[in-house]
């Protein structure tokens, strides 16, 4: 159990700071879909793939004092900001397992993107068994309120390819 928590801490330490619960959910889902060893179970919710298990782990890490969570008002809603604490760093020293260095690269890259975009990327990945044309349709159905444009969806496809090549290039080196 604790080793799975350590993988979440690893991602947050790598990113230095993750702003938004939704963003963290999508980053871990995308990392899992890129075959990094995250084991949380995801299914489809309002904002795309979501893991109740991951929510729980993050809450536990906050309660254990390993993660610092700051709730802040942004416009009309609240968002959460996560950083590793000193105790979290000590815990990580004991429980951290060797993870591929490309994971860090992908995490850092994803962390620069907006949570709206990562929501789209993770949703495209969720439906990636469908033909491309059906994915456009599916996104307009299940994400009608977000009003994603075709250009944004194309950008999401490109981004997935760039992440995949980041992972593959490293493997070949």
């Amino acid at each position, binding site marked *: 159990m604790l080793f799975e928590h350590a993988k979440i801490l690893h991602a947050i330490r790598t990113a230095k700071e993750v702003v938004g619960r939704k963003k963290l959910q999508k980053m871990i889902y995308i990392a899992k879909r890129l075959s990094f060893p995250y084991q949380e179970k995801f299914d489809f919710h309002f904002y795309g793939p*979501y893991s109740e298990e991951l929510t*729980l782990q993050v809450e*536990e890490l906050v309660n254990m004092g*390993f993660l610092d969570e700051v709730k802040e008002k942004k416009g009309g809603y609240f*968002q959460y900001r996560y950083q590793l604490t000193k105790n979290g760093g000590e815990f990580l020293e004991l429980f951290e397992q060797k993870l591929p260095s490309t994971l860090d690269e992908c995490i850092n890259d994803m962390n620069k993107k907006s949570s709206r975009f990562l929501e789209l990327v993770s949703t495209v990945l969720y439906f990636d068994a469908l033909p491309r044309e059906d994915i456009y349709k*599916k996104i307009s159905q299940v994400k009608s309120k977000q009003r994603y444009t075709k250009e944004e969806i194309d950008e999401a496809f490109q981004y997935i390819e760039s992440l995949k090549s980041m992972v593959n290039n490293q493997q070949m080196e």
Partner: protein
Amino acid sequence: MSYAMEKLREEKVFKDPVHRYIHVRDRVIWDLVGTKEFQRLRRIKQLGTTFLTFHGAEHSRFSHSLGVYEIVRRIVDDVFKGRQEWDESDRLLSLCAALLHDLGHGPFSHAFEKVFQFDHEYFTQAIIMGDTEVNQVLRLVSADFPKKVAEVIAKTSEKKLVISLISSQIDADRMDYLLRDAYFTGVSYGHFDMERILRVMRPKEDQVVFKKSGMHAVEDYIMSRYQMYWQVYFHPVSRSGEVILQKILHRAKELHEQFYHFKHEPKHFVTLFEGKPKLKDYLELDESVVLYYFHVWQEEDDPILKDLCYRFLNRHLFKYIEFDPATEYKKYMKLVTLFTDAGINPEYYLVLDSSSDLPYDFYRPGEEEERLPIQLSMSNGEIRELSRQSEIVEAISGKRRTDHKLYFPLDLLKDESTKKNEKRQIKELLGING
């Protein structure tokens, strides 16, 4: 008459201890129940290892699936019928999705999914869309009907109201399993007034709402759910059985990867061990098959596999202590070292297990939460979120409760014929006498 509209000449009923009768008039439903993929659910227990604690909990996913179907049937035929917001053409879709929502569950699903890293939802989709009897029946309705049913179950359909009937914080799935599990475990909690809840349900564009006059019945449902999670579903003894089950599967997988020569070749497991389970193999796996392997694995040469199988089958479970990972994680690492020194493999015999539940949560517009709230319809037509109206629900909203336990085989630690000093140190750290 089209197959979708075809009715049986006479209504069929299944006698049921929870709903008294399950009523079937639709040919499609009758044919689905008769498929081999649905009949397989008779051989999969609804509550996994809970029978080790509550011996009555031997009921199957078959009876639960029929129960969910019956609740949805009553909602759409008795409560929603004729209401403006309800599209009657979604009736059959709702009934089929309710009946088939758990179709992909395998034996001891939770443990299998954890160890072999797959989701039963994947198999639900695969059975509905694949080369199966269920798919053949659904295709008789229309070529795209299997896809529509699969999308409702996966929550990726645009029909949000239909999804909310089987997947929300108060849905037919939860209502059936709470009542059914309470009945079969014999516990006194878990009961609530489902009749009243059904009577106050109203269809809205995106989800079901509840008339304010039924709020107390909804409160009772939420409290029942809370009690059932902590008294039944997270019972520490059942969790001990679950821990051992997971470790058996881990061990068998590890041995397979090490090219261990099994006396009884686990051919039903091979594709799972190799991370590419095939639908055909998966459908052959039910609890009778799994328990057969556990029996024969007691004769294996590997001491860990045979011991764990013996423990599971004979209920020689692991003992446990409360454990706080925040303050005791260094102790955990010490225990790992001591277990290794004592010759007891900590990977299989020292297990930290957590249970957690959030009884009810609500979504505030614009926030990042993912739970659909329970909405009340007020007498003036306004819609209000439940916890804003109910003090009881407000008190538990968003409050997660978590429990951590550390499991270990006390009998091995008590045997001081070998590694006496290490075992004594372990017992001291665990706070165990003798």
